[in-house]
């Protein structure tokens, strides 16, 4: 990995000497930071970089050619980013998909399908947590267009149970972090990380958010930076969707399919071909679409079927990806 003299200066001042981001930014903008390093300083930077290189980690600085343009316009952009994986993704258009850790099963499935579609046009930016983040990762990982931004160093993992998932993302996509190697996640690091999520992306989709969810911070930052905010609508009274509904009320785009997002960015989509259904399956699907989340017994009663016939039809729909189990023997259409 080759670094220009300017990049090396930034790396020396921030990563090696530990200059604060704000002071560094002022120095860069004022032009005073661009000075040539002494031989001794240059040596220490080279040593620092080769150590990172051995661990498969690269650095992107504010002055790098591929430093994401959009992030520069964030209020408080990180001067250097530690990266692991496919650096090319930084050049792609980026879109952020987030959700709280407790996301209803249907929203996870829907989010996964939606992200899959988005990933053919954008690199999907998200975190690494359970729930919404995991749904986004599951959707984007097969295409490899996935950037996970961590609230800890790239060699750490939070939550620890997702270490295997992190490895997969590093192999197929990209892991980013602003923290030096070995830094563990702290409470405030999540807020700081959220500004990078919002700053990287052209827009943010919120899959689920409670009243005080951290995903709302990401959405708020996105608004500050002038990015679009999208949200999934929820039934009234569902705690995990209160934040989403509040965003929509405040003017966020309401999303029920990928086209809702793609059309905002002028991307045309082909009409989706739906899996074929027949007989009982079609009747059940139609009923589900009319009534929303429904209990198996209610469906069976309304359509004059035996309970187990309705259950069989619902399984068929689930296998075809047209319906999903939402808990307590209830189903909803996708």
């Amino acid at each position, binding site marked *: 990995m080759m670094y220009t003299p300017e990049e090396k200066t930034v790396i020396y001042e921030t990563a090696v000497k530990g200059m604060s981001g704000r002071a560094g930014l002022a120095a860069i903008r004022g032009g005073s930071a661009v000075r040539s390093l002494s031989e001794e300083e240059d040596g220490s930077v080279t040593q620092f970089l080769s150590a990172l290189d051995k661990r498969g980690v690269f650095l992107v600085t504010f002055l790098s050619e591929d430093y994401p343009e959009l992030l520069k316009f964030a209020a408080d952009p990180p001067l250097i980013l530690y990266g692991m994986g496919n650096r090319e993704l930084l050049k792609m258009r980026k879109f952020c998909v987030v959700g709280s850790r407790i996301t209803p099963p249907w929203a996870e499935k829907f989010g996964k399908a939606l992200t899959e579609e988005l990933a053919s046009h954008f690199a999907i930016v998200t975190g690494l947590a359970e729930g919404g983040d995991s749904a986004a990762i599951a959707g984007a990982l097969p295409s490899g267009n996935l950037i996970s931004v961590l609230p800890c160093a790239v060699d750490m993992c939070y939550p620890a149970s997702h270490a295997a998932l992190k490895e997969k993302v590093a192999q197929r996509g990209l892991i980013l972090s602003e923290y030096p190697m070995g830094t563990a996640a702290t409470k405030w690091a999540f807020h700081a990380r959220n500004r990078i999520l919002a700053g990287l992306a052209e827009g943010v989709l919120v899959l689920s958010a409670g009243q005080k969810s951290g995903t709302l911070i990401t959405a708020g930052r996105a608004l500050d930076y002038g990015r679009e905010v999208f949200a999934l609508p929820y039934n009234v009274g*569902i705690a995990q969707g209160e934040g989403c509904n509040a965003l929509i009320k405040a003017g966020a785009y309401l999303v029920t399919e990928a086209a809702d997002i793609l059309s905002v960015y002028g991307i045309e989509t082909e009409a989706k071909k739906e899996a074929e259904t027949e007989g009982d399956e079609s009747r059940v699907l139609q009923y589900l679409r009319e009534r929303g989340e429904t209990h198996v*017994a*209610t469906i*069976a*009663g309304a359509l004059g079927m035996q309970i*187990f016939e309705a259950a*069989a039809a619902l*399984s068929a729909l*689930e296998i075809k990806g047209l319906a999903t189990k939402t808990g*307590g023997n209830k189903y909803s259409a996708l």
Partner: protein
Amino acid sequence: MIAKIICYALSGLEGIPVEVEADVNKGVPSYDMVGLPDAAVKESKERVRSALKNSGLLFPMNRITINFAPADLKKEGAVFDLAIAVSLLKASEQLLGADVKDIVFLGELALTGDLRPINGLLPILISAKSHGYAKFIIPAENAEEARYLGGAEIYPAASLADVVRHLVGTQPIPPLETREFVPGQHKRSSADLKYVKGQPIARRALEIAVAGGHNMLMSGPPGTGKTMLARCLPTVMPDLTFEEALEITKIHSVACVLGEEGIVSERPFRTPHHTATTVSMCGGGNKIVHPGEISLAHGGVLFLDELPEYKRSTLEALRQPLEDGCITVSRAGGTFTYPARFMLCASMNPCPCGNYGSTDRTCTCTPSEIRRYRRKISGPLLDRIDLQVEVDNITYDELTSDEVNEDSASVQKRVNEARRIQRARFEGSDIHTNAEMGEKEIQEFCGLTREGDKILRDAFESMKLSARARARIIKVARTIADLDRSENILPKHVFEAVSYRLFDKL
């Protein structure tokens, strides 16, 4: 003079004949026991001495030797009291003219000379009968237990004096009348499916589970009727046959949990608490090995409420008996095998707080808490639970109101029919139900149509099912087809079977 009396000792569920020999000689009065008696047997000296005296008989003031044969078997418990007393009487010539040959004497003595009941009478009687003994004198309080065993002369005696009068012929005891076994004649449980409100899915799963002998897991928030549903399981299972009833009664008799009615006439329903130890579950003890909960549930249902709360090691210990239908426990006193063919029914909350997946209440658990909670149940154990079903968390009014609550008897009819089909299918093999099928039987009896195979393939891809889920789904589909009286497994059966899975994706 020497007297020989036959008695029986218990080893596991088997009775072992023990010959009690008494020798009464002239000499300095003494009383010795040989032939590996344990403390309880040695203490019988005092019980026998008092019982003889208080029954108006003489305790011989001579040199007495009692021998137990075979000498290498450890003799335990108070079951030999009566035999020792009778052998002493015979040897001291107080039973002149009485024929004690080929009579088996069983019973513990009280100081007053009354006979006390013993544990494990039924297994002893059954073993002794098979050894060719046909006459028994037993404690009167054990009479009910012995009443169902035909083909033997059984004389229930209330006291030692009664026994003596019977033997010398002054007042013979009338032999016990054999009673016909009627399944369900002593019903203890009042559970019935008609009292279960709503829960159509769980009801259906319960029917399938019983029909195919599958184990089942119910997941649902607290207080939604999981336990009540489970209690209905024995009521829809096929009625006990006499042979099954005898086998269950044998186990319950050995474990001292047999009720006054003397025979188990309905399928057992055991609910060990989640603090149960592995030993209490599987059986154990330091000398005599007692049957554990899984053996007491033999022929019936073992219900484990709040499955993740049980100790992991205890749950893992269930795996082998679930497979083999019996448990072998080895202790210093010997190795014992108890039958343990039971249906496992377990219940659990979806998460530690119980509200995961509920629409009206918020779950306060973090995802990692939920994962930890569910991970307490190991994959191999889940492997053996074919049906996993969610229990509804909604009030009855929310469901369609024209729903009829079927009673257990009508469900049992369908179950019997499905079992009949299975008996015909597995005739000549040691398999009884669909759940016991192995890979070979699955290939032989569960041919899927091309369409059915495609469905499974699609299901695996879209639902990310684990490989072990395949056999499980096919077996359940086979049972559903049997309930439907369909020779082939049709697509609808496969679809329904797929809907009874919860944890394949974890």
